[in-house]
């Protein structure tokens, strides 16, 4: 289902972060953070509560301004690649139906046709709820509407902030599988999770540490 635009990419490097620093209310969350993301990488960001995991993800997506340093997404068709970001909020409109939620919200820079959307809804086991307004769904089901976007996104990078929240065991297993398959096909995934995650290949760990000067 989900495919990665392989042919358009010249090299394996997808994201290069160079000495990034983020400040909140005049307090540094972290500084001098450098790392690189390649195709096939699964990177888990770890750090205690309030370390800036979400801030880092939002900053990489361009939702948050960073105070110093820089990062660079690889270019696809001369445009910087647009990652798919799923945050704490499900980003599902309660008054729209499951189908409309996917149809009228752009995913990775484009709107999708009816068929792939219906397929994706079947895959997240919401086929019976196609035309139900999402306010009638449970929290886990709403979450899965959001996750259906993973199957539709035409992007080489997923950024997932706590994707396992309010999913059942089966749902977690399904999501883990999707992430692994996506990485095998050449995508890269940046995620946070408070629950232990089970991948066949151990994910790389990126730890966020408080800068020294903020401690004193």
């Amino acid at each position, binding site marked *: 289902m989900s495919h990665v635009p392989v042919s358009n990419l010249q090299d394996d490097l997808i994201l290069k972060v160079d000495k990034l620093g983020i*400040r*909140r*209310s*005049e*307090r540094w969350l972290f500084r001098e953070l450098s790392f690189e993301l390649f195709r096939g990488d699964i990177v888990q960001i770890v750090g205690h509560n309030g370390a800036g995991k979400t801030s880092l993800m939002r900053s990489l997506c361009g939702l948050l301004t960073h105070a110093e340093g820089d990062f660079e997404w690889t270019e696809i068709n001369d445009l910087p690649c647009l990652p798919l970001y799923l945050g704490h909020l499900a980003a599902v409109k309660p008054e729209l139906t499951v189908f409309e939620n996917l149809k009228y919200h752009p995913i990775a820079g484009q709107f999708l046709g009816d068929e792939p959307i219906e397929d994706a809804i079947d895959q997240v086991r919401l086929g019976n709820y196609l035309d139900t307004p999402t306010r009638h769904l449970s929290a886990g089901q709403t979450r899965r509407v959001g996750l259906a976007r993973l199957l539709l996104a035409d992007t080489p990078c997923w950024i997932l902030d706590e994707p396992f929240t309010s999913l059942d065991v089966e749902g977690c297993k399904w999501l883990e599988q999707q992430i692994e398959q996506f990485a095998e096909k050449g995508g890269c995934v940046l995620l946070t999770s408070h629950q232990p995650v089970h991948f066949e290949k151990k994910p790389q760990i990126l730890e966020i540490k408080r800068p020294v*000067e*903020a401690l004193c």
Partner: protein
Amino acid sequence: MNWQWFHRLSSPKWFYQISERWLPWVMGVSLVLMAAGIYQGLFNSVPDYQQGESVRIMYLHVPTAFASMMFYMVMAIAAAIGYIWRIKLAHMAAISAAPVGAAMTFLALFTGAFWGKPMWGTWWVWDARLTSELILLFLYLGFISLHQAFEDREVGDRAAGVLAMVGVVNIPIIHFSVEWWNTLHQGATISKFEKPSLDPSMLIALLLMIFAVILFCSAIMMYRMRNEVLSRENNKSWVKEVVLGKQIGKMK
């Protein structure tokens, strides 16, 4: 091109040090000018042949009105610079200028009302300039409240920066439409420099007061900026040195 000076200029520490040297001078000159202006205005200038003694309110009304508009421009330009080039000091300048400007706007309205009572026989007239001044007060208050509404000061800075830029585009439009709406006020007095309609003694008093008020406002703004610098940079080592140094000085 050498950007060194630019970088230095935008450093809060540099500002704190240079302002410490400048402030007494700015404040001193403004007080001297103000004393001279008040003397000239109250004792050494002629009363108006139509308005009599009440014309002397002008020596406070016109400078405050002038300062209210000037400081809006200062605030907006500083906020825009801060927003575009992300200079913290510029944001601090903008947020320090706003209450000063708002106070001047209020004073201009207040003295305007007092001038209006003997001239027009009423405290408030909906004429173009008073109304513009009132709207200017609203704009100031909007800027200040928007900045205060954000818990994170840096976010407040950016929000207020956007608002200031929108406001600056709008001010000429608002001013023009209010002018069109009502053109009852007497013509501009100060801009006619070639053929002054004012007596020279009045003009001297007015100019003295204008410079005095502007310098006074700048001094107040500098005080506010220094406070802002200290409170925002409170975790920097140089601030600790400054504050601790002062305390030690007091103990001696």
